[in-house]
Each structure stands twice: as C-alpha cells, then as structure tokens.
C-alpha cells in the first residue's frame, strides 16, 4: 500500500500569490494513498527540507511529491533530502506549480484547481516509481580543445599545467587565431604578437599538450567522461616530421601573387607557405588550388630545393580517433562580409578597408611594415574616417547585436594612426561609445583628448570617390546637421560574427547555438562556460563577441571546469535509461538501428549447455542517454524507460 507525502511550497509569494497552498494541501490530503500533506513558505530552506525528512521517518513514506518550482531548480535538493531520510531518491518527484502554473495564470481559483491536478497526477506517478540506483562510469582523463586562438591556448595551458593531458586541434596552419593578426592591443597598447607568441610556443612545447594543426573535428560520439572524437588531419603535402622550417621552399616557390589570408588580402604569399613568420608550428603547407605543380602538372621547385625531402605531393588526408573525457570548444569568430553595404563601396573602392585590414597595416610584420599607407596608391593618408557599427546594431542589413569590441579597437586605431602620422586627422562616426571595462573609458577619452580623434555622433549613409578623395556623407546628430568629409582612407569597424560553419559544427559536437550562430552556454549568468551537453565547455568568441581579456578569462574558467571533472575517478549518472524485457524481445533490431547513441547491443541468451536460445537487445548503461527513441519504436513493447515507464506516464496522465 502506497504511503505518499505531499509537500507544497509557497515559494514566498511566487506560488502563494496565485495558488491557495493550504487549500491545495487539504485537497491532496483526501487523495487515496496520501498519508501526509502540508504546505510551507520555503520548502527548499533547511526547515522545509527537515519537514520532509521528518515526515518520511514518522509516516514511513514510500513516496514523496514536492509541489514547487521546476525540477531543473531543486529536484536534486529534494531527492538528496529524501535519501538522507532513508528513502530511495528516485521515489521523490517534483510537481511544477510555479513555472507551469502560478507564473502563467492570474485567476486564483482556477490556478489553485490546476495546481491540485498537477500534484495529483504526480502522486499517481510516484505510486508506480521503483527504486533506482545511479550508474557509475569511468572518466578518461584527457581533454580535447578545439581551436588554437588565445582562448584555446589558455585553456590547453591551464589544463596541461595542472598535470592533465590535452589534445589541441587547430584547423589553420598555425596557432594564434585572430590575436596573431592584431598590431597592438587595448587598453595598454602592448604588441599583440609579443605577448601571444610566447604562449603559442609554450603550448607547442608542453609535453602534456598534443598539438594537431591543420586538422578538423569530423565527428563526436559518446558522453561526458567518455567521448570518442574523429579528427581529420588535412594533408599539407609537407611531412612535418622531416621539415625543419628552413624556408628554402617558400623563397623558391614561383607562385608568388596569391592574396594572403593572414594579411586580409593586403599582401601576397606563395603557394607553399606559412601564414606568418612566427607561426607555430613553423612548418609550411602547399595550397593545392594555387600550386603550379598541382594545377599544371609541372614545377616541383619546392621538392627540388627541400634539403630534407619533406615535400610529398602524394600525401592524403589522415584520420585519428581520440578518446577524451571533456571537450572545450574555442572556435572563435570571423569578421562580417561587408558586401551588403553597397553604399559604402567596400571591395569597389580600394581605400575603403576593414578594421582587421587596418590592424595588418599597423602591424610591424604586416604588408606595409607597420606604415599606414592607403592601398590604392601607397600614399600616406592625411585624413582617415573610421566608421563604427558597420554590420552591428543594424537589423536591416547586418546584425541586431553589438559586436562589443569595435568601440575599443577603433579608439586604438585612431591612436595608432596619430602615432604614425603625426599631423593626420581622424574622424570617428559612432552611435554610442561602449567602453565598459577596466581602463577602457579612460582609453577612449585619451584617443579624443590627447590624440585628437574627432568623434562625430552619427552614421554614414554614403561613400563615393570624387577628385581622388573619398567623400564620406555622414551626419552630426548632436548638431542635427548632415556633414561631408573628404577622406583619403575609410576604415569600417565591421561586425564580429559567428564562424560560417558554426551551426554545422555545433551539430557535430551536439551543442546548441543561437539565431546568430554563436554557441549557447548552459545558463547566461550562472553557467557561462558550460553547454547543455555535459562534458562540453565553451571558451572565447565562439559564444559571443569578446575581447582578449574576456576570452582568456573564459579559457581559464573552462579549464577549471575540466579539471573539476577530472578530479573524480568515476562519474555518477542518472539511471534514467532504457531497459529491455528479454522475455518478450524478438530481436527485430529496430531499436539497434534507430538508437542515436549506438547504445544498443546484441546479446545472446544461451541455455546451460551453451546452446543459443535467442538474441535480444541489450542497452549499454554507459552510453544510453534515456532519449526514449527505442521505447517509442519497439513493436513488441519490450523496452521501457526507467523512471518514466509507460505505467508511470499513463498513471500521471490519468491522474489529471
């Protein structure tokens, strides 16, 4: 005979304002099988939990229903309280009367009636619950970090320095990401590469870090503590074990006019190349599409000159399988394509450039050797106009959100420009200056007050060439007047957007993303580096546009989450998994084919003599995620989900 306890929480006024809790408790007391029913102001508080524990002991309860907030909030709390009182935690269920009742209704009487019904249905379910035991799975103490920008490097170093193994996968030829492209960094104006390259080298030399560059994650399976990851090692046509990075090949390569991706098209590279001189690893690859040997069948200059015979034109992509216990996604962002702004003429007028191009121009290792020279004629621009919010905060043509970093980097650009072209005039068209951060507002004020950047509040509507200048038609909204500036160069602060393949990549890893393709954290405030998938964490600008300090902080945070996970020998998992009734299972294998987690195995049942009686489905408890696909599919009704059996669900529905 069931002996159920019902505990109704007021949640302060959250529930009690709309639901008559004492009345509900009285109604439930009458329900068959309920031996105790009470209400209390805060059930999750210590006295509240003690009420539950006391009732379990005094009334010898066989099941508990707590009517309160969503089970996502406090299911663990109440189940733990039950366990402390000697009741199997899986005999405790939550009836959600806050999110699904009091918060969404205003009529007190009807809401009370609804609450009573919700609780009743849970009482009916709990009567049919059975005692379950958590599942224990081992943890593979090796982390996978995807993305070798500053966030990924930081994560990998933090994990490795704590003594755990890391595999760092980068899809480009070198570590470094966007930070390697930057000239100087705000708000201190220290050289980006000077602070980044030591970290890159450290990551490459750390014995705990296995570095896979020019590699991409193809597939991910498994679950927290036990992921299996397949990585494609793209062929470089250069054997990096033999290559010494001497550079003989790229000095000889005859294909020299290929726009350099690293220099954003402002400079050229060869077909066999490293993206930049400080690349880690400093080993080249051949760009097949632009290589004369691959396109025309003859050349082979690099193979002839290579002193170690490292060039291999026959090289194929390779695949490696990795077992890892945790995954950190640090895949970064990209700069928005500005073709949508026909009125600004990017791509049509060579002297309209993006902020990232300006970074390359201002960088000592860049195509102009750090001189600010306009692309059309190589002259030093005397007037430069910077336009902020190109793509950002523009739902019509661009993106709804603020890219966060542009206000600061534009202020930095005006300073770098002024430091290099002393009499140069700079104008900044802005909508708002968003400089929240330590030393950030001071930095933008310095650009305005000391480096004489002229800030104009307004957007620009049109840029067109006239008499060798670019006429910028903007507005000064503070004066309420349109204005025109004849500029020598225009720099667009283009929006930071998600990687083009962010959505398909998120699907490979099995994590969520938002409407803009940025990857979703588990909770926007309280779980910023976790994802909804256990064991997968986020770091850096793949989650939202971020500057360097934020990316580094998030990288370290993700590392600490990984290390916390690795501090355990084994993980405890919810026992909500499928279970096969071996007597009725006919071995049709519909479930075997359908299971998205490959958790169903074929099991042989033999008699004592070892003779095969039949084959049945078997659910691997380590792999099963409790999704229920097999349950729905099973034709002989032989699979059920523990904790959510058909009997329980039917009872719950009929209880309404």
């Amino acid at each position, binding site marked *: 005979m069931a002996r159920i306890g019902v505990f109704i929480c007021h949640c302060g006024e959250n529930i009690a304002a709309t639901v008559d809790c004492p009345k509900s408790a009285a109604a439930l007391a009458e329900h068959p099988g309920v031996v105790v029913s009470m209400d209390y102001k805060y059930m999750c508080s210590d006295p509240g939990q003690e009420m539950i524990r006391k009732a379990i002991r005094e009334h010898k309860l066989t099941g508990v229903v707590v009517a309160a907030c969503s089970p996502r909030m406090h299911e663990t709390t109440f189940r733990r309280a039950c366990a402390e009182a000697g009741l199997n935690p899986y005999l405790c269920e939550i009836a959600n009367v806050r999110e699904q009742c009091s918060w969404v209704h205003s009529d007190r009487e009807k809401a009370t009636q609804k609450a009573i019904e919700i609780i009743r249905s849970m009482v009916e379910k709990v009567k049919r619950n059975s005692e379950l035991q958590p599942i224990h799975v081992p943890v593979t103490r090796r982390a996978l970090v995807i993305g070798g920008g500053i966030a990924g490097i930081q994560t990998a170093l933090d994990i490795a320095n704590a003594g755990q193994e890391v595999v760092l996968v980068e899809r480009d030829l070198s570590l470094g990401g966007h930070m390697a492209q930057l000239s100087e960094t705000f708000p201190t104006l220290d050289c980006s590469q000077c602070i980044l390259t030591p970290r890159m080298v450290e990551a490459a030399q750390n014995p705990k870090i296995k570095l896979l560059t020019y590699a991409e994650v193809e597939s991910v399976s498994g679950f927290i503590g036990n992921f299996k990851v397949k990585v494609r090692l793209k062929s470089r046509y250069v054997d990096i074990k033999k290559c010494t990075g001497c550079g003989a090949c790229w000095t000889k390569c005859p294909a020299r006019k290929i726009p350099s991706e690293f220099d954003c098209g402002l400079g050229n590279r060869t077909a066999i190349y490293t993206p930049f001189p400080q690349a880690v690893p400093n080993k080249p690859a051949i760009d097949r599409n632009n290589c004369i040997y691959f396109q025309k069948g003859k050349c082979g200059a690099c193979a002839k000159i290579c002193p170690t015979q490292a060039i291999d034109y026959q090289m194929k992509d390779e695949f490696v399988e990795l077992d890892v216990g945790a995954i950190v996604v640090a895949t970064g962002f990209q700069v928005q394509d500005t073709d949508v702004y026909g009125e600004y003429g990017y791509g049509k007028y060579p002297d309209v450039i993006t902020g990232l191009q300006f970074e390359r121009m201002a960088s000592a290792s860049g195509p102009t050797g750090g001189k600010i020279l306009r692309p059309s004629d190589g002259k030093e621009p005397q007037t430069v106009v910077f336009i902020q919010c190109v793509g950002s905060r523009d*739902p*019509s043509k661009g993106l709804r959100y603020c890219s966060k970093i542009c206000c600061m980097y534009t202020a930095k650009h005006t300073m770098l420009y002024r430091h290099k072209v002393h009499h140069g005039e700079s104008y900044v068209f802005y*909508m708002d200056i968003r400089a929240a951060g330590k030393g950030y507002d001071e930095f933008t004020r310095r650009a305005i007050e000391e480096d004489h950047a002229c800030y104009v509040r307004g957007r620009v509507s*049109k840029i067109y060439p006239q008499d060798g200048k670019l006429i910028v038609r903007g507005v000064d*909204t503070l004066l309420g007047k*349109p204005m025109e500036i004849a500029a020598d160069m225009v720099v667009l602060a283009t929006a930071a957007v998600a990687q083009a393949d962010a959505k398909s990549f998120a699907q490979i890893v099995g994590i969520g993303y938002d409407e803009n393709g940025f990857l979703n954290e588990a909770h926007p405030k309280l779980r910023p580096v976790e994802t909804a998938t256990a064991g997968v964490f986020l770091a850096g600008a793949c989650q939202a546009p971020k500057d360097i300090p934020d990316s580094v902080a998030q990288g370290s945070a993700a590392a600490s989450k990984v290390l916390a996970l690795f501090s355990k020998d084994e993980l405890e998992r919810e026992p909500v998994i499928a279970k096969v009734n071996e007597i009725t299972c006919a071995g049709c294998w519909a479930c075997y084919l359908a299971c998205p987690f490959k958790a169903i195995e074929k099991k042989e049942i033999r008699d004592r003599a070892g003779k095969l009686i039949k084959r049945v489905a078997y659910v691997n408890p380590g792999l099963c995620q409790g999704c229920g696909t097999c349950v729905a599919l099973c034709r002989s009704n032989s699979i059920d989900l523990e904790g959510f059996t058909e009997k329980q669900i039917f009872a719950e529905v009929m209880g309404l």
Partner: protein
Amino acid sequence: MSEEKKETPSGNKEQLEQTTGNNYACCYQCGKCTAGCPAGSFMDNPPCRLMRLVQMGRIEEALKSESLWYCLGCQTCTARCPQNMEVCGTIDALRSMALEKGILSPNRARKLVEAFHHAFLNTVRKNGRLQELALVNSYKLRTGTFFQDIDAGIKMMLQGKINPLSMVLGGERVKGQGQIDKIFELAEKKGHQEATAKRRPGKIEIKPRAEVKIDPAKVIGYYPGCSLSGTAKEFDISTRKMCQLLGLKLEELEDWNCCGASSAHATNHKLSLLLPARNQVLADRQGLDYVLTPCASCLNRQVMARNALQGSPELRGEIKGVMGDEPTCHADFINLMQLLFGLDGEYIKSKVVKPFKDLKVACYYGCLLVRPGNVLGFDDPENPTKMEKLMEMLGAQPMDWALKVECCGAGLTMAKPEVIEELTHKIMRNAASSGAQAIVVVCPLCHSNMDMRQAAMRKRFGDLPAMPVYYVSELVAIACGADPVEVAVGKHFVPALELVSK
C-alpha cells in the same frame, strides 16, 4: 479612434504610427537618414530630428518644420534605415497632417511647395491627367513667380512639348471623369484611417520580382503618363520608335489617368493609392500581361499601388466601388529595362544595326527606379547594373561612377530650382569626372533637371562640361537604326544630336 483623442499629442503620434506602420520607439537616432538625405543641408529639422520630434510626441513642432517642404520623396532615408523605419513615409504623413490641420510653417518654401501640389492636384482633379501648362500657369498665379524658367517655357512651346491652345480648348481629358471625382472624394474624406502593416527592425530581404518574360508576338500595354505626353515628348516618341524597331506591339492603356506622382503621395496617402489603382483596373480589364511604364515616377506609383492592392482587401473594395470591378492585379507594370531584359539577350543584339563607337556614358538610375528595393526588386538598390549591361549591348561604354541612385531633386524643380541645381550639379560632376561624355536616364524628371537646368548650373558653378542627356529609349532606337532626328534628340536643351550622329 475618436476625434477628441486625435487632437492630443499622443493621439497624433498614434495616427502617425498607424499610417506609417512605425513604432517610433525603434528609432535610435543614428542619423543615417539625415546623412543620406539629398536635401538634408537645406532643412531646419532634417529627417532624424523629425523622427525625434515624433518620438517625443512633439508633433506640432514637427508639423511646423520647414523641412517637410524640402523633402524630395526619394526614399533614400527609408531604404538605408538600419531599424527598418518608414522615414520618408513619416514626412509624407506629417505633411498631410499639417495640411489637414492647418498647422503649417509660415515660411516661403512651404508656400511655394504647397502651391505646387495644389496646382498639380487641381489639374488632375479637373482632367484626370496633368496638363503641364495648366500646372505651370496655376502655380505661377499662386506664387507670383512669373518669370522663372520663362526661356525654357518658350522653347518648349516652340517644340510642341506644351500646347498653349490646350488652355483654351481643353486638353486631353479622361472619359471616366466621374470616377476621378469619386477617387478625390474618397481620398479627402475626413477621419479615414488606414492601418499599414507594422514595421519592425529586421532583415530587409531584397527578393527579385517575378521574372519578366516578353513574347514579341504578344501585345504589350503602354502607359505613357502625363510627362510623356508633354515635356518629355522625346521619351514617348523614342519609346514608340524603339518598340517598333524591336518588333514589339504597344497598345496604349485606354482612358488612363495621372498616377498622382509626386503631389498625391506628398499630400494624401489614400489618393496616391487610388489614382494608380484605377489604372490597374483598366489594365486588368484590357487583359494585358505587361504594361510598359517608361516614367520612373509613374512606375514607382503603379508598382506600389499594385503591391498595396494585393495586400489589402479594403483597398480593392474601395476601388471596386469606384470602377465597378475589382482589380485582379494580373497586369504587371514594368519599366524599359525590364522590358528589354525580358527579351532574349540575343534578340536585342540581333536588332542592333548601328552600334555606338567610342560613346562613353554614365547610366543614371535616379532614386525611384530602385526603391523601395524589397517591393520593386528590379536590381541591386545601391549599385544597379542593368542599364550598364544594356549600354554594352548597344556598343556604348558605360563608365563606373558612384552617384547612380542619388536623387536629382525631382518634383521640387519648380518650387526650389536653386536646390535642384546644387543636387544635380553634384551628380553631374561625379558623372563627368568618371570620363563620361553623356548621361543616360529613364525618368522625365531626371531628364528635365539635368538637361533643362544644365546651362544655369554651368553658369553658377563653372566646372561642368556640356553633357547631353539621353533617354535610354533614344539610344536603343538609334542603335537599332533610327535617325537621331526622328527620335527627337534634337529637341533637347543641351545639343545632343552630334554625339550620336557619328
């Protein structure tokens, strides 16, 4: 909404929100509307200030703004608004409201422009069509600007572009005058309130319109509009000649009326839809698939009206009340470029018998041919290239230049000629510095501003070479074998015969 509520500032704001579909809270004052406004520097309250005044409920200040009477209606502000606000429509709505309530700017610009719109709509009300001489006379009587453009007027009279006799004998009139009366009556009914679909910030998708496929064997409707029957006679003559040479049969839309551009939409939104809606009914009745509408202004009004009719059963009902039958909206109003690109590319090339040599042209689209991009969907709204492709087919060399879609000043040509000169001068100088010898246009207003006012501009600014201004139809016809004199190229103000007679 009750009359009483309307009189409060918040009532006025609500009315503006209803007619434009805007939620004024969405304006974040970036100023892009003002930045791109061709007339922005002449305005007391440029577009972003007007938006702010409305946002703050200071409607009366907005109504008294001189800027309402400087707005050219080019829609650059709306086209580029990052928050998808109807800025141009707000100015139109403010202007209508100012007239309706009699809260008006006391300055001269307002008086001139208002006089122009009055004169314009009065001749349309009387005749169903615009008679340009009647308009000019009526305008001059109202404003006392008797000697403005007098030389140009005499020249046009001598060329037969305007017929002084029509003043005495009465010019062409619409037979369905009763229908025109009813349309004005409906549009001027007080207190009517149409709700426009709500606009919210979001991606503006520029979808290309249904592909135009022209079958040379089928009859194509022809809507010349008022200008082509008057000051833009060359456009009419050359369009007809061009079609004849291309083997296309044109059939004029029977009993067509003025589309109302640009005075109707500047002062009365309902009128700006009902006038073109009548043409739509006529075209549908006549069983036409396509109606060629050479004038960019007329085309804009017809396409906008067709779009509104398709989306609004009430509007269809209203025009049914006037005309007796509802428009099916089958007939599609198209411009010259759509007509030509609707033909097989090889077909046009096969008809070119006298390709141009060494003719460098700047293709000027003007404002209304491409806006609003998401309704007209005819070409890239910021950098259209169809006219250039056409010029290449004719053997001419289109130059790359920047101000293809800037507004020339359009309908303010009579009321504010000095503004027009500044705007048009900027455009023409940019065209000239690209190396172009001539400008190609598709709009009678662009043509008159660039051609008729060019001498004055040259005198005032002193840096403009003489540049003939051709209608695109003139060049197609000439390349297809027409004699330049025959397509009336000799009637331009800036001598244009020599360049195309080589």
